[in-house]
């Protein structure tokens, strides 16, 4: 790490005194602020992750890394902005399962191609989602829920943060795999779905774990399963859906992307730096505190992961619109 820092400082120094193609590239990558564009609003859990990483990189590498929120159009505005920024080595995307996994199959007029226009850098974290019921339901496991849904096909109602959201499509996949049928009730945001669950309007709600501890600790809602492949370290007693349905994994994720055509050297360096940042002890602890599972995949593994995700969500979207 020390070596890398010294190298950075050295290259900045060189770039300042010398001119030439080699040092210019080093200057472009370390001297000017690097912008991570987050297509969702400040304060969301995606944003917290992006800022933790940017702060850590700024502190470690000595040049400014910033997060910019460019919101709107289900994330399309921000993603498009990164695409249009071109391969300048300064603008990168904080991609998430919604904007870079689901929307490509869901929205017809997207101004970007998730496969062609971007190069995956690193799948940094996943966010397990929790399938929740109220204590009044009297069930605590996914099996019981599936049994209940089989007994009353098409009667149970599940809420989500909106049509086409990760929560909605995760439940569509669950229904297909478990062979059950429930009614989808969309809300404008996950916290309102949780309110609908508490008010007794719906039977099941799926929402990202980061925003749930308040209601879980108060005993208002009961998590019966998490959608990630492994259990969440924060709730080790809650089983993963994968323990009932093999291979099931619909966690939400954050994957950083560079615009296509970015210098492979920069892609490689940034990818490695992202992995280093999320594995930093302090950053990792903060990430886990807010309910994230640190994955820190390298570039090749992230690319494979992204390709598989695009396929999985395409299937889910098809199930939902059938």
């Amino acid at each position: 790490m020390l070596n890398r820092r010294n190298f950075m400082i050295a290259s900045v120094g060189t770039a300042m005194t010398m001119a030439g193609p080699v040092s210019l590239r080093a200057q472009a990558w370390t001297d000017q602020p690097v912008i991570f564009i987050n297509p969702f609003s400040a304060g969301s859990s995606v944003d917290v992750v992006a800022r933790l990483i940017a702060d850590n990189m700024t502190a470690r590498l000595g040049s400014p890394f910033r997060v910019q929120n460019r919101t709107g159009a289900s994330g399309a505005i921000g993603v498009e902005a990164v695409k249009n920024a071109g391969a300048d080595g300064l603008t990168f995307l904080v991609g998430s399962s919604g904007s870079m996994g689901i929307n490509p199959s869901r929205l017809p007029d997207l101004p970007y191609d998730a496969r062609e226009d971007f190069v995956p850098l690193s799948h940094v974290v996943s966010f397990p989602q929790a399938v929740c019921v109220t204590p009044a339901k009297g069930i605590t496991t996914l099996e019981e829920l599936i049994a209940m849904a089989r007994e009353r096909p098409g009667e149970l109602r599940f809420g989500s943060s909106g049509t086409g959201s990760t929560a909605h499509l995760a439940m569509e996949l669950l229904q297909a795999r478990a062979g059950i049928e429930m009614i989808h009730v969309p809300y404008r945001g996950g916290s309102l779905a949780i309110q609908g669950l508490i008010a007794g309007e719906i039977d099941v709600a799926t929402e990202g774990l980061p925003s749930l501890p308040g209601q879980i600790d108060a005993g208002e809602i009961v998590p019966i399963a998490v959608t990630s492949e492994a259990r969440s370290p924060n709730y080790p007693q809650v089983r993963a859906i994968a323990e009932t349905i093999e291979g099931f994994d619909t966690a939400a994720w954050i994957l950083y992307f560079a615009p296509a055509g970015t210098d492979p050297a920069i892609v490689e360096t940034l990818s490695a730096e992202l992995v280093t940042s999320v594995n930093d002890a302090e950053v990792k602890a903060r990430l886990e505190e807010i309910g994230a599972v640190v994955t820190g995949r390298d570039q090749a593994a992230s690319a494979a992961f992204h390709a598989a995700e695009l396929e999985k969500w395409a299937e889910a979207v098809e199930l939902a619109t059938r």
Partner: protein
Amino acid sequence: MDTLSALVGGFAIAFSVQNLQYCFIGVTLGTLIGVLPGIGSLAAVSMLLPITFYLEPTTALVMLAGVFYGAEYGGSIASILLRLPGTPSTAITCLDGHPMAKAGRAGVALFVTTVASFLGAAIGIVILMFFSPYLAAVARNFTSAEYFAIILLGLIGASTITNGSAFKALMMVVVGLLLGTVGTDLSSGAQRFTLGATTLYDGFGIVVVAMGLFGISEIIHSIRLSRSALTDQRIALRTMIPTRQDMREFPMPALRGAGIGAFIGALPGAGQTIAAFMSYAVEKKLSRRPEKFGTGAIEGITAPESSNNAASITAFIPTLTLGIPGSATMALILGALLIHGITPGPNLISNNPEMFWGLVASFWIGNIILVILNLPLINIWVRLIQLPYNYLYPGIIVLVCVGVFAVNLNVYDVVFVIFFGFAGYLLKVYGFEPAPVLLGFVLGPMLEENLRRALLVHRGDFWAIFERPISGTFMAMSALLLLWMVVSAVRSLRRGSRRT
């Protein structure tokens, strides 16, 4: 008293030098962004959020909350003096505040709105202190059926916010409803009226519509008018003294406004704009001389101002006690807590009492600072918008564009705000009013969303909405209100025909 001793502890926290400092910064900044049309609390809070990363969570919360409720104070200043709403929730204050200013009573209007704002906030804080658990219990049992019923009542009630033809107002409500449908349909995920443009996937922002229709259009409109001497009015403390009649007409509307605002604010998803519109409509309904509304009725500014301030305080109830943010700005404030590893939920008050009571105490301190900022120091703010027209108006247009842009960093929002500005101007020229458009725009999507969800949950049984006690009561009230409107319309028609 448990609550009182907890509050004393809260004051001890709120009076720490750091918290006091950030409370002052928050409310001053809030007033400033409130006074300046275009930049609202949503933009301001999202810009401040990264800073709160480095603050104590209580301090961060105190500052962000100060911006949030401070903006409600500042917003009315621009509404009264310029007929440009500083924030969407003070748009309704233009209707009677500006005529008052034109009649040389700007000082009185500013005084009355500040006192009403403080009163509304104070009642909101008392309710937050003593009734949070109860209000949260009511709000948590609200299902889509209840939301639908209450929004319907609000829409019917508020459809009378017009001085001109009721038919034209109704047309404008429909235009607002249609504008509200633009974007992704929540139930099906289909794109409605987006014309294939991705930038319309999320529909139009409320700030864009409100600032365009009320703000930009007013500026375009005033280009044609000769320069009035209005903004040159000196707001001396002397001119702020209300008449005895003003005093008589003050308390009841302010109290009713605070009550309505406190209730609406506590419902997740409603918010200050709806609270202000509803209080205005109630006052107009209750008034013995509704024809005075729109020409400078004092009830027309006290009720909405006390209402939006009460709502800005009680909006913290669902956010802090249920962990459910009622608005985009609240979601940001909640995000500030999330950054610090605090997850709001039913246990927040018992787990973080020092934070909750520190915040409550800071509400008292902040509101008192706001009264000082808005009464003795009013001229600082007034002078901000007393520049000559040829500097002020281009300046405001720039501010509106910057403010609208800052929310999403989306250039098209600037294009849309200008578009709505010209649309609002054309409406004005042809005698249509923008207020019902905004009303339909805000309430329409909520009405549709909750109706469809209620029908989905009750398997298409519309009568289920009438069978639930709370929603049934609101539906009955809507029916009575409609009946009364028809009866009074018929009566006034008869009276009219007898006279001629």
